[in-house]
């Protein structure tokens, strides 16, 4: 294999792939990126056996002799990044080493044979859906923060995607809070389908998605989700298992609804949160007519008292929350005003944008 490529044509896909490649590998070949050079195209592949990312390059490229080889992903990406902008890079395989040359720079990297590189097995396609990258990105960004991390309930360590005939919905929960966002889109699906995309796959997919109208094709398989977007083909294994019935935990009976300015509420919570217990992060909300008080204290007997004006008329209520969970929601929302609906100190709170009901957030309180 021998080829010449512009630094930029190589660096962009390499950096995307380096995100998939994990730092600690059990199989050495998994820290490598697979190069497949054809006469007029180059394909780069990285995988961690759960998520696979394939990048297709056919511009800024001249292949002198085709071939297949795997090269350490992170080192090659670091080398590429450190080279001057707009330079040409030559990669040439000699024996079991690859020579990387650019101007006066010359690097010799170890390789592993392409045959050692694992393939993600193909599986039957059951459904496909095309949508704008920005829409999918918004959907995932609105919800992914609520995914669990290394929970024994393995099915929570990911994001649930649900397709109905006229919507695509994302739901994530760690058992304490839940985020749900729905995109109105005619999908043509005759049944309601659900799949759980693992945490890593979700985060990598978000990194790939552009904030633009260019399209992404989602292909649903029995065990995989594939996303094709521009030069990339992203494939992730799915988490097997049943996602909890999210409808059951979205509260309907709340009778204490207030409206607050999103940024002011966030700032007030952040201020009070400074003096909450650093691990537990509990704050006490005191809701009363047109005012929301926020209180926090910590084991050092330090305390914070703050308040902000809100639109509220009704019974007073005192309720505790993990301030981090509330701030996460206020970061995920985008509008100026938020509506929070509560019922009592032991029942969940519902948070939404006042003008846009696409995303809803449920947060369980904390007994303080």
């Amino acid at each position, binding site marked *: 294999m021998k080829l010449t490529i512009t630094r930029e044509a190589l660096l962009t896909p390499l950096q995307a792939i380096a995100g998939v490649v994990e730092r600690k590998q059990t199989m050495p070949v998994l820290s490598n990126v697979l190069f497949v050079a054809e006469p007029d195209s180059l394909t780069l592949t990285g995988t961690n056996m759960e998520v696979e990312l394939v990048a297709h390059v056919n511009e800024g490229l001249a292949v002198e002799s085709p071939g297949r080889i795997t090269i350490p992903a992170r080192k090659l990406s670091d080398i590429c990044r450190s080279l001057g902008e707009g330079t040409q890079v030559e990669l040439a395989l000699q024996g079991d080493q690859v020579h990387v040359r650019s101007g006066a720079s010359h690097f010799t990297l170890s390789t592993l044979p392409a045959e050692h590189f694992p393939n993600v097995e193909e599986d039957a396609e059951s459904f496909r859906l095309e949508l704008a990258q920005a829409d999918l990105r918004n959907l995932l960004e609105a919800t992914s923060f609520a995914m669990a991390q290394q929970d024994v309930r393995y099915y929570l360590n990911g994001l649930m995607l649900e397709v109905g005939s006229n919507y695509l919905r994302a739901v994530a*929960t760690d*058992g*304490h*809070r*839940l985020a749900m966002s729905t995109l109105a889109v005619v999908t043509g699906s005759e049944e309601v389908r659900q799949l759980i995309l693992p945490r890593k796959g979700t985060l990598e997919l978000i990194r790939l998605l552009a904030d633009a109208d260019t399209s992404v094709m989602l292909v649903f398989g029995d065990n995989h989700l594939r996303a094709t977007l521009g030069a990339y083909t992203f494939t992730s294994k799915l988490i097997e298992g049943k996602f*909890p019935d999210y409808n059951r*935990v979205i509260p309907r009976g709340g009778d204490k609804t207030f409206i607050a300015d999103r940024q002011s509420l966030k700032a007030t919570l952040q201020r009070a949160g400074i003096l909450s*217990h650093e691990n*537990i992060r*509990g704050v006490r909300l005191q809701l009363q007519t047109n005012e929301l008080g926020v209180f926090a204290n910590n084991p050092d007997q330090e305390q914070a008292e703050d308040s902000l004006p809100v639109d509220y008329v009704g019974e007073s209520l005192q309720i*505790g929350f*993990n301030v981090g969970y509330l701030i996460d929601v206020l970061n995920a929302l985008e509008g100026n005003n938020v509506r929070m609906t509560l019922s009592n100190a*032991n029942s*969940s709170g519902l948070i939404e944008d006042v003008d846009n009901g696409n995303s809803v957030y*449920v947060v*369980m*309180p*904390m*007994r*303080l």
Partner: protein
Amino acid sequence: MSQRKIIHCDCDCFYAAVEMRDDPSLREVALAVGGDGGRGVVATCNYAARAYGVRSAMTMSEAHRLCPDLVVVPPDMARYRQVSRQVMGIFRDYTPLVEPLSVDEAFLDVSETELFQGSATLIARDIRRRVREEVGITVSAGVAGNKFLAKVASDWNKPDGLFVVLPEAADDFVRALPIERLFGVGKVTANRLHELGVSTCNDLQAWSREQLAERFGRLGLRLYEMSRGIDPRPVVVSRPTKSISVERTYGRDLPTLAACEAALDELVTDLALRLKRKGENKPMHKLFVKLRFSDFSTHTQERIRNLTVLPQREDFLPLLRELYGDARRPVRLLGLGVRYRVDEPGEAVQLRLFD
């Protein structure tokens, strides 16, 4: 807070007292209640036996060696529990605020009791009289302004005694206390305190809160308070169960891991019975296995499980294997249990969406 009035009542050698009450022939002998047959352990013994140096938790063979004439009676827990209910019932005639610590011991908060013009001393005296007359055993009582002092006081004139720490005398009383009398001070802490030249609460009072916290952590803070006679803990009427366990000391050591595994079934069944009867209606946070080898070294291994169904043999097996390791030593005692998550008052609890 206004001055509280706390009574600590402690039945004198409870199991033995019940046996002596029910069998007059046992009243004049040195008596121990516990498993006999060489491997048993003394659960309780009467004062005649204590005169020979017999103590609870001692092996029965050791007890026999100290006191060759020792009479041993096997424990009859059902009968003791029944007597305990009767005694606790008497306590509750004086105040609803009764906190049992075990079958034979309880704290009473009589701050609001109007009987005897609110005199805790007279209440304690009356309780002692009624238990003696109605139940036929003796109770020692301590009266003080908090739990810590009341507990120390009940031990002061034991057996069959009453000791009152009046508020104005509390300070002198505490200062004179040897540190071994403090809650949470065992041999190790006592030795460390002695190394610092501390042998009484008076000595302890010379140390600041920070110095004690630095050396003894949380216990240090408690030491600081106790040495000044401070103990704000309230009398808690019902405390949540923290753990439920069963254990068995074997008449013959279990020689191998395989023998321990074989013995597991019986314990799992016993534990299931106890859980059905006394279990809390919440997830079992941890499972644990306890092993005591023939050299008396005792080890436990626990694992977070949050089980909502009765634990099975398979749940304990890995813990047992881990614990036994490659010990190749005979096992004297095997125990199993579950621990619940106890939400300390004042501790924040994040509520869950799916439960």
